[in-house]
């Protein structure tokens, strides 16, 4: 037995903690480095007057989430069931879902 | 000197399966002597040993260890007395599987926080005393019966106890190993260690090194030899 088990364990944990810290620093550096990128993105948004993220392009009501309304997913028939996976991931915009 | 005064031990008090293991036992054990508790199984030997060895507290009665009363100590402090005064050898050795012989010998001392290198050296020395230096890193499962027995004894000695308590140590041993065991006990006695054995093996209670035999039956001491 060259090393005690606790030494090996603590060493491993220390390495893991260091890697996690490293990743956090990586995140920090990445965020700082992406400031100009965000400046370009916001410029595009401002110029094109965009309102939504291009995340779910499968249905119109998920493409422009904030512009949609409650009836859109069920427009075709009152009993139609949600058939787009993204409809199960995202709720309706809160300003529609919220009771006044 | 260890004196037990009028001790009783009741298990499952107040329940239908209430069972009285000891009835008002009084006993004095002289230090530096070897005492054997003899009697059939169920006679209360083991219970008496565990009470003397600070593993449990009697329901009534008092036990004094060198004039200090240990009966009313809570578990936390009882453990400390147990650790610093007694070494235990069990039936079937009760070694912990999966770790090495050395670690088995060291294990009782872990909670004391003794420095690793010191503890390791001490454990090695104890093992070497029993010619087990080469087997120190071997796992318990790989040891022969004789080796396991010696590791168990080495573990009991790690704190240099003043008193060794052995419960039916030879039950599962053949004659050769039983003799070997008694030889080791003889060595320990020669070094001044007090030894208390519980056994119904004639090889043990008939041995030369036994100074006193206490016979027990149905939770009471029956042999006149123990009369105070």
């Amino acid at each position, binding site marked *: 037995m060259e090393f005690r088990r606790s030494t090996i364990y603590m060493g491993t944990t220390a390495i893991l903690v260091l890697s996690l810290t490293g990743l956090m620093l990586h*995140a920090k550096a990445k965020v700082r480095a992406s400031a100009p990128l965000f400046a370009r993105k916001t410029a595009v948004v401002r110029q094109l007057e965009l*309102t939504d993220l291009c995340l779910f392009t499968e249905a119109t009501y998920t493409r422009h989430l904030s512009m949609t309304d409650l009836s859109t997913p069920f427009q075709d028939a009152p009993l139609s069931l949600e058939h787009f996976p993204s409809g*199960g991931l995202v709720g309706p915009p809160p300003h529609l879902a919220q009771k006044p | 000197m260890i004196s037990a005064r009028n001790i009783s031990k009741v298990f499952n008090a107040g329940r239908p399966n209430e069972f009285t293991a000891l009835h008002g036992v009084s006993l004095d054990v002289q230090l530096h002597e070897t005492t054997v508790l003899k009697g059939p199984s169920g006679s209360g030997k083991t219970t008496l040993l565990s009470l003397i060895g600070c*593993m449990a507290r009697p329901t009534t009665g008092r036990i004094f260890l060198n004039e200090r009363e240990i009966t009313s100590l809570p578990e936390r402090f009882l453990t400390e007395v147990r650790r610093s005064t007694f070494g235990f050898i069990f039936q079937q050795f009760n070694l912990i599987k999966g770790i090495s012989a050395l670690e088995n010998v*060291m294990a009782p001392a872990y909670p004391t926080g003794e420095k690793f290198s010191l503890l390791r050296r001490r454990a090695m020395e104890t093992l070497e005393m029993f010619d087990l230096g080469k087997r120190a890193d071997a796992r318990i499962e790989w040891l022969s019966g004789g080796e396991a027995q010696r590791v168990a004894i080495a573990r009991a000695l790690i704190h240099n106890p003043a008193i060794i308590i052995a419960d039916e140590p030879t039950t599962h041993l053949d004659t050769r190993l039983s003799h070997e065991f008694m030889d080791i006990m003889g060595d320990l006695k020669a070094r001044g260690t007090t030894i208390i054995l519980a056994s119904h093996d004639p090889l043990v209670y008939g041995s030369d090194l036994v100074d006193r035999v206490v016979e027990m039956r149905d939770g009471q001491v029956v042999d006149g030899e123990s009369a105070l």
Partner: protein
Amino acid sequence: MTRMIERQRHIMDFTLAALLRRKGKNGALLSVYTLLVFILASILFFTHALKHEAALVLNEAPEIIVQRTMTGRYQTIPVAWSDRIRQINGVISVHPRLWGYKYDKDFLANYTMMVPAGNPPEPGSIDIGSGISRMRGANRGDIIAFAGHDGQPRSFTIRNIFDSESQLVTSDLILLSEKDYRDFSGIPEDQSTDLALQVRNPREYATIAEKISRMYPDSRPIVRTEIQRTYDALFGWRSGLMIVIFAAVALAFVIFAWDKATGLSAEEQKEIGILKAVGWETSDIMLMKFWEGSIISLTAFLLGTILAYAHVFFTSAALFAPVIKGWSTLYPTFRLTPFIDFGQVATLFFLTVVPYTVTTIIPSWRAATIDPDTVMR
């Protein structure tokens, strides 16, 4: 002090040995635990990064969008409304927007067509998002034809393709000139899709929206804060699929962990008895059990979090992509910016490590109070 540390280390040594001895069971526990942390951390990192990105980017979205509805459906809005709306105090400017969708049967893709407020392409040419370019293999200068509202195909020359760095907002866009779009979609000259308002003071949003609704009862104003809140609530706790999967995994784990913590095998029980007999105290056994729980949960937490970080930010959440993609063929291959902070990791820690440790207190106490003389009986 050194004694205390040495005691902890000794007990840790022993605990590790005990854990290694039951490799199969503990290995399984560790991997399930790690998987659980991994899923939870991935969801947390992914949604947080996305929300943060949305909040940052959509900070420049129009302050108020005014839509018009008829029988609960969208209608084009008369451009003339903008004159009256501009009179409202606090409204700096009003700009009619023209946009809509185009479903491409050949590629099963939904495009968003719009007329940009600034720098529109000349008639006959278009700018497209990198998603479309990638899917159709179209490059600058190529000519693409779409069928308009009247069924007649119209062809456009690609003037520009958006950088892939802005994919998350532009992937499916087709930008064209106002003249082309009106011709293409058939929206009359005096109508537009909706109106975009510029308002400086956010405190006035509600008042202005209210005034507009009073002015045009069939209008529907959407305020920027509402747009942002939409993305803040994007993957709420009720958001279906993932939470169902996660709940099932978590439940299985809880059962497993509970069983592990409460069900002491005869061998373990005997071992604890031996330890107590040879000089371990109840609190030493509890310490051992504490280390047992901490070693497993801490390792699982660290491994799971590190893997989740790699998964979300190095592979762009490759495991989630199939779920998010759904039927869409235009999924943007975006790289998320790692917006994570200490608080998030701390939350994760409290969600995963603390409950496990707490649930093991009582079982470990039970185990620790085994009578030392059991080994003698």
